[in-house]
């Protein structure tokens, strides 16, 4: 038996519900940044003309700035949310 391996204790719905809720929130945060990034990748793959429109200050450059800003903002919000919960 693994020294860290737990037993199969039963946990009530009341115990598990808030934990599942936290995980849903975490997935939502992750989904936002993943969708933004793969949106850019998908557009680069299938709509390069649209991404390159307006060069040198192209849609792609603006999208890049947006993703970096979103990543920083989401990280800040997430940490703040976790701190408030604590």
């Amino acid at each position: 038996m693994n020294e860290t391996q737990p037993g199969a204790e039963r946990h009530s719905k009341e115990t598990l519900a808030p934990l599942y809720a936290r995980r849903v929130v975490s997935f939502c945060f992750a989904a936002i940044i993943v969708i933004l990034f793969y949106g850019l990748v998908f557009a680069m793959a299938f709509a390069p003309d649209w991404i390159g429109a307006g060069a040198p200050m192209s849609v792609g450059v603006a999208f890049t700035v947006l993703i970096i800003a979103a990543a920083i903002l989401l990280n800040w919000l997430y940490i703040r949310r976790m701190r408030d919960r604590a």
Partner: protein
Amino acid sequence: MNRPPLLAAAAFFAAAPATALAAGAQTGGRGVAIGFFLAVIALTLAITYWAARRNRTADEFYRAGGRITGFQNGLAIAGDFMSAATLLGITGLIYMSGFDTVIYVLSPLVGMCILVFLVAEPFRNLGRFTVTDVAAYRLQERPIRIFSAFASLVVVLLYLVAQLVGAGALIQILFGLPYGFAVLLIGLLMTLYVAIGGMTATSWVQISKAAILVAAVTILAFLVLLRFDFNLVNMYDAVASAHRLGVGVFQPGGLLKDPVSTMSLGLALVFGFVGLPHVLMRLYTVSDAHEARRSVVYAAGFYSYVSGLIFFVVGYGAIVLLAGRLDYFDAEGGLIGGSNMVAVHLAHEVGGEAFLGFISAVAFATILAVVSGLTIAGASAISHDLYAGAVRHGEASEKEELRASKIATVGLSFVAIALAVAFEKQNIAFMASLVFAVSASASFPLLILALYWRGLTTRGAVIGGVVGLASAVGLIILGPAIWVQILGNESPVFPYSYPGLFSIPAGFLAMIVFSFADKSEAGRAERARYDSQIVESLKDQSIGR
């Protein structure tokens, strides 16, 4: 598909460091570069000497006693991905191909976000020393440890060899030392850091290097912007005039020519980053899950800052500032030292000999720090997962495990050095693709499904992991990097350089299908332990802070 640029892109993760100090030698800055170079070695050895006094227990060796703060660990994690590849490779790729480099720039950032939101807290709460601890929490320890340690070792060894080949060439250029001796020197240094200083030395070497790199890139970007009176729009207009692609340098298509390669690369880089063992191990070096989360947030901040400066300022600025400067080009019009030398030439152009020496030494420091992190991750997989977990079934004493970890460090270093010497004349670009493909296709699915899917069983995890690993390795062997360029066949069996689009779903699918098919008693027990795992993984040790 445009294969040569694709391979060049892959190479930046592996061989970019190779020519970092060449400009120092070629433009008269060798003395300054050597001075900074020796200073880096002196600083890192001093850190190791200081850390050696603390490196007495397994806890100290694997996770620096958990004494690293979130801020410090943030620098270290960022440092793991702000390697010579970031400074030299990405700058060179922007210079050559422009906007497509954005995938390389953004993927570690997206990976860090996934680490913060989905991995950091449960990983820190469930595990103890290595990546495998998390998967072994509710699954059968022995098969999981053997598979996961093997996958970690494949990633670590390939990454180590790629870095050592680049580092060997680097020292060779600077000192005129034989390649083999240069690899041995780097290998000896990384062995010393890890075997004597453990995670404390490894972390502080990485922290110091990351801080120096942040300063170096800031100064470089400042000096570039100074040339354009801090007007980015004017600079971009000049870039469009100076580059062979014109405004195309701000549009997709300069590097990645087909949708499959673009999507595949995007997938492998993000998910491969999340599965890298030397990055994940750093989450244990802080006191609790709260600090683990904070450390990745800091890392994302540092990485955004540095990569943003490189992408928006340094890379594009180099296109204008190096244009027409004949002393940086050879008789055929090619950049001296190749595209990886762009940042080094730029440093000379905007800051003179002293700054060139400084940037060159920073590149060397990044290599030392990254290979040390890789070595400790590999040594831990051997000593903690294979020796203490799989062979001794958790019965090894702390003293025995610590001794095994030091022996593993020396052994792993020896193998890596030997392979690096053997691969001197080989095209090692495929190794970089392989590192991220294996990490994304084998380690990442195991990590995510172990944390978030009740249905995962040991059988599914091991079979799925093997499928992910084999498909990643197999497709790269059958692809253009090995099948054509190394084995000399006319055309590849698998037409793409990046297998992620196929191997990552294969890994996930196999884990899910074989877990569903597992009706064994052991499988049922593993599913039943999932609720306990959730409670344990999300227990908030930081409440009341």
